[in-house]
């Protein structure tokens, strides 16, 4: 039986691995088979992670996190958790690769998944003009006209990044101001290829088999418009990934995993949670990492009380 199983491999998961590893707990970290490293694997330059004054690439940062966790004995498994039973003193974790593990404690660091617009045919057109990953797909939109939907840091980053390829980038946002950080906003607003469409939502996806445009609705005066597009990048935020545990641990009304105060303690003994899956507010690499540290220390404390 494992002392600790960590589910997730973003900054929270790997930091929990570093701390529980250094505590001699030989953690097993189940990283996912195709999304190991989490959200930062899809970003480019990370400029605000302390300790790296000149910035570094998201995937580079995550490789370093992983190496540091492995240095202290964290076993990283590239597999997907498909089922857990966390209620008893022995926690059961099953993977898509057909393995079953047991542990005394589990740290949930499953992060958040891209939010969809919720429009008809959104799935069908994904990969055919609709994209969720600017760094993966920007390349295919050289000299094309595209739009980014959203108003946060990731929307600003994607719009700015995509101007390397596209001839024109519309930035469509529901409100009349962005919630993105000032530096990211300024970069987008000062970019001559970016045109902001305020107070507007995407109301329909156009095109058969391939996106050719969108219909938009102005939320102030209700006017509708059609925009011809080659690509649409959606960056409207994330939802906590809780499907594994939603019937076992208590969630907040917003569907995040509920934790006790500033700790990582969930409603179940021996089950801790960290990172974006508990955080409706900050959602930064550094806050997730801090949260992973909290979970590791809580798990360590819980284990020492079992003895």
């Amino acid at each position, binding site marked *: 039986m494992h002392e600790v199983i960590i589910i997730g491999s973003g900054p929270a998961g790997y930091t929990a691995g570093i701390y529980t590893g250094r505590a001699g707990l030989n953690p097993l970290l189940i990283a*996912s*088979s*195709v*999304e*190991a*490293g989490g959200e930062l*694997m*899809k970003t480019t330059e990370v400029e605000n992670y302390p300790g790296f004054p000149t910035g570094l690439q998201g*995937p580079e940062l995550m490789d370093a996190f992983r190496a540091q966790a492995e240095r202290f004995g964290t076993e990283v498994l*590239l597999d*997907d958790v498909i089922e857990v039973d966390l209620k008893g003193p022995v926690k059961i974790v099953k993977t*898509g*690769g057909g393995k079953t593990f047991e542990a005394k404690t589990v740290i949930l660091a499953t992060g958040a998944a891209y939010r969809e617009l919720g429009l008809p045919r959104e799935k069908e057109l*994904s*990969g*055919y*003009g609709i*994209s969720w*990953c600017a*760094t*993966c*797909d920007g*390349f*295919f*939109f050289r000299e094309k006209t595209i739009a980014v939907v959203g108003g946060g840091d990731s929307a600003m980053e994607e719009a700015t990044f995509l101007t390397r390829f596209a001839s024109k980038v519309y930035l469509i946002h529901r409100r009349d101001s962005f919630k993105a950080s000032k530096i990211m906003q300024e970069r987008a607003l000062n970019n001559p290829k970016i045109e902001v469409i305020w107070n507007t939502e995407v109301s329909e996806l156009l095109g058969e088999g*391939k996106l050719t445009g969108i219909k938009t609705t102005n939320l102030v005066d209700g006017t509708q418009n059609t925009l011809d597009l080659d*690509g649409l990048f959606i960056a409207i935020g994330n939802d906590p990934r809780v499907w594994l545990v939603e019937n076992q641990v208590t969630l907040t009304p917003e569907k995040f995993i509920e934790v006790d105060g500033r700790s990582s303690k969930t409603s179940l003994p021996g089950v801790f949670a960290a990172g974006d899956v508990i955080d409706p507010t900050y959602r930064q690499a550094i806050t997730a990492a801090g949260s992973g540290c909290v979970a590791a220390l809580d798990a360590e404390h819980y284990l020492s009380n079992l003895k």
Partner: protein
Amino acid sequence: MAAKNVTTATFQADVLSSAKPVLVDFWAEWCGPCRMVSPILDEIAGEHGDKITIVKVNVDEEPALAQQYGITSIPAMQVFQGGEVVKSIIGAKPKPALLADLSSFIN
């Protein structure tokens, strides 16, 4: 077993004229999810190589092929049979999901 790299010059022989179904993995160095899915495809090739051939197209080196097959998102995996695309899989997926997508070719 690493999948063979296919180019415009070899696409006809390696893909379009193949007697066996061929899965073409459109990928690039800078695509993180592509790097994750690549070893899974190698495993599938090792286990089911008698039924399906798996090859790679580097979209950086072969933009014309990517354009010809309408690729706008990678990883994109297209299965060719008799010179036609008969199945499209978009995005990195875990091995069981890929095996399910490919079940009609490998079972």
